[in-house]
């Protein structure tokens, strides 16, 4: 569905008063996502994961230097194609709950999402109600404003917006942050359900542990570089089937496993980058 080849992203930063430097946020990043799969992109905060999402959607801030190629269903994904497909075939579930307009009622916002995906307004209204019902948001929640919703409900509203747009590629940016285990599972299950319907889901998260049960494949990211892409079942036991030392260390560091910490030098990691 989506192919990313050698994507590099540089953003400006001011080292001193006049000198402008470029910070590399994505370094020759490559990825392949197939229909019907949940592909988790896991990395520490600051590894460039959200920027990856924006790069795919074409929403990067203007002073950005981008190189490399993006392909969607075989076609090169350039700016004009991105503009066409945004909201219709490419959908983003944002990390921040501030993305919900606090001055507009929930059902209306979801209906707008449907309209922006190309549906007629009467149909959009009906579709939004259906989507919200599907994610178990009752009539009161549907007429509520953003600040009246709990964290879990708000995340479900954002997911409903992606659902109602009937997008084929859904990028979920840190969808389970700040939720209790029950809510978190609901959100992740919803993403799994989307994939089961034939859509591609990119799950961006720092939570490897909870992503594994619903993911098909996992890509580990570090400092904007791709460290390794493995199938989810490779993350088992002592992580022996993982080819990269960093991925193994990440796996082993989980509290469920050895809870061990080993310093992995960048040189060691670079040797085994696929």
């Amino acid at each position, binding site marked *: 569905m989506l192919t990313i080849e050698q994507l590099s992203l540089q953003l400006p930063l001011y080292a001193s008063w006049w000198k402008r430097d470029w910070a590399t946020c994505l370094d020759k990043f490559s990825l392949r996502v197939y229909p019907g799969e949940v592909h988790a992109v896991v990395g520490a905060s600051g590894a460039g994961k959200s920027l990856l999402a924006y790069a795919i959607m074409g929403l990067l801030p203007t002073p950005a230097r981008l190189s490399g190629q993006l392909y969607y269903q075989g076609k090169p994904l350039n700016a004009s194609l991105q503009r066409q497909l*945004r*909201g219709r075939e490419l*959908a983003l579930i*944002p990390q921040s709950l*501030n*993305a919900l307009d606090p001055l*507009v009622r929930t059902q209306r916002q979801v209906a707008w999402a449907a309209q*922006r995906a190309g549906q007629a307004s009467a149909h959009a209204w009906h579709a939004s109600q259906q989507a919200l019902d599907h994610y178990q948001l009752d009539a009161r929640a549907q007429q509520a404003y953003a*600040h*009246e919703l709990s964290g879990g409900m708000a995340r479900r509203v954002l997911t409903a917006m992606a659902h109602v747009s009937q997008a084929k590629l859904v990028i979920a940016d840190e969808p389970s942050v700040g939720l209790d285990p029950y809510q978190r599972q609901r959100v992740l299950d919803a993403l799994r359900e989307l994939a089961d319907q034939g859509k591609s889901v990119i799950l961006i998260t720092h939570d490897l542990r909870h992503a594994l049960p619903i993911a098909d494949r996992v890509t580990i990211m570090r400092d904007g570089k791709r460290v390794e892409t493995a199938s989810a079942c490779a993350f088992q036991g002592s992580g022996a089937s993982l080819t990269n030392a960093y991925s193994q260390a990440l796996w082993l560091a989980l509290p469920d496993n050895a809870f061990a910490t080993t310093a992995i030098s960048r040189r060691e990691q670079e040797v085994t980058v696929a």
Partner: protein
Amino acid sequence: MRLIAPIAKRVARLALVLTCVALVSYGLMMASPIDPVDAYLGPQMAQVSPEQRALIAQRWGFDEPPAVQFGHWLRQLVGGDLGWSHVYNQPVSEVIAQRFQRSIALLGSAWMLSTLVGFSLGVLAGAKEGSKLDNIISTYAFITASTPAFWLAILAVLLFSVTLGWTPTCCAGPAGALNQEVSVATRLHHLLLPVTTLALLGIANITLHTRTRMLELMRSDVATHAFAQGASRIDVAWRHGLRHASLPAITLAFASLGELFGGSILIEQVFAYPGLGQATVAAGLRSDVPLLLGIALFTALFVSVGNMIADSLYGVIDPRIKAGGL
């Protein structure tokens, strides 16, 4: 029932602030180096003997301590008596009432124009950030906001009245005509240039502020998410921008009342329009203390009530505040 408590609190605060305004104004007048007897007598002060001056001082209580005088004045004020204006030879309340009637046409139209046009221009400029339209609007607003109001008025008179002859050079009606004889059309003709000039200034400020809010919104998470859904800039501006910009616009509109009053003083002076502004200047220049005080209080009341209305409206319209959260 829920609404009454905050409104009552606001009214109480309003009363407190107005009392302070009265105190400060009165204090300032007391501090003035002008002899109150001279101020009362006006141009006739040369013709009055010292004994008569002493009598006047006694009659009006000028020889009593300031606190007592303030008490007198306040009591009179609450009773509705604002004193006597020696410049216009009328009770102050009448002067204010008459002149305000004439100023309200000027102020009201300018206020509505500046709010509506300023808001629209601000929304347009913010929505199309960086475009030619935005540049034109921002430049106009920026330059006008830095322009001395009275100079703009002078330019307007020079251009439209003197050079082109489209509008009259002064006053609310033709010289020599009685108030009743002047038709509505003539009145409007005389109002045209002053209102336009005053509005131009008000528009600039509101445009700049609204544009800033729109820009904030267009860069916010809400806008980014909308763009991610495939919305165009116009879509975001119309559906999200308008809502977010309207709320501060209410506060802006009422806050601009104070500036408009100030501007109208200058405009009325240039156009010799016989409104409240001109009366204020006359009162100040000819030491008409009761009139000056009366006008100060009246305008303070006007502005404060306006601000109070804005605050209350905000509480009713903004869903975040209505829920009692904020």
